[in-house]
């Protein structure tokens, strides 16, 4: 397992490290996220961003923040994986984009934006990726009803006579 004491001493405030089975996890406050990712890429050799995703902690027992954003990094020379997690809150959940570090962040961050409405500042092209462009809600938020709020009904009805 990779030794991160140097990194933790440099970004002294509130970086917690934990492990669960073979998961190596790092919880970082949002304002130091980008420098930490930069350091992990430049000095620890995490050259691949495998995954960016988010969790909505609404009504989650013991949770203090609304969204957790999770970055899974991979060091392709050592095979080491690291999970970096940070928290953001409403009304304007916002994080710096990891696109300058890893180009794979492009679509991953678009997907997180699409489903959770978390804005990644500095992203070159932050549009919806899966849902139609006209969609206004963020459906993976827990306060969004499963059946939607009428988006499925806003299409013209074609009758047989007019087609």
């Amino acid at each position: 397992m990779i030794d991160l004491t140097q990194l933790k001493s440099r970004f002294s405030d509130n970086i917690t490290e934990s492990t669960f089975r073979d998961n190596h996890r790092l919880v970082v406050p949002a304002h130091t996220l980008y420098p930490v990712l930069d350091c992990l890429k430049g000095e620890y050799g995490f050259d691949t961003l495998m995954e960016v995703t988010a969790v909505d902690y609404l009504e989650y027992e013991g949770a203090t923040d609304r969204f957790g954003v999770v970055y899974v990094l991979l060091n392709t020379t050592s095979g080491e994986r690291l999970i970096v997690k940070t928290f953001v809150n409403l009304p304007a959940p916002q994080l710096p984009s990891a696109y300058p570090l890893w180009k794979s962040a492009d679509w991953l961050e678009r997907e997180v934006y699409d489903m959770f409405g978390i804005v990644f500042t500095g992203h070159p092209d932050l549009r919806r990726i899966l849902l139609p462009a006209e969609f206004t809600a963020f459906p993976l938020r827990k306060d969004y009803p499963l059946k939607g709020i009428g988006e499925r009904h806003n299409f013209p009805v074609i009758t047989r006579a007019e087609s």
Partner: protein
Amino acid sequence: MAVGLPENVFLTQLDAAANWARSNSLWPMPFATACCGIELMATAASRHDIARFGAEVMRFSPRQCDLLIVAGRVAMKMLPVLQRIWLQMPEPKWCISMGACACTGGVFDTYAVVQGCDRFIPVDLYVPGCPPRPEQLLAALIEMQSKIKQTGTLMGGEFDRRTTSTGPAPFDLDELRRSREMQPLVNLEIYTPPSLEDAVKAGPRRD
């Protein structure tokens, strides 16, 4: 004095002749989006052999087809595509909604899946099943043929009379309950376990 017909000549109506030709050479447009599409392929393959009913010419261009088979769930993002395909098909044309998802949305009652393609395009025949067996699709095809033979006309006048949608209304009463669910919650961060009192007050859910 009765005039006998020469050999190899028979009398019929133009409508019946057109229906006979149309019903025995349906060219399907396979709109296969899910597992029903696999059954559709099985129907076309050698064991079940849709060619026995003259419908083996699957064309992947809607301009060459006259039978739209909606096989599988229709995502909300896919519905404009489906409508466009339907509008691109030349007359006369028919539509089979195959499987639970295409007919009603099936188990996917979510914001992203259209709850039955008949809400937005006209459907002639529904095939139940999840997914339907190839035999069911063949039965539907035979049913479609007999429907064409019974109701079809040369100029397609029977289509012009269908001026109203036969499917359920796109907007249903359920919408009201859904908008209530959208009320913002108080104390977002605090965990509140669901209580029996609230459940009793809310009454049974209709769905």
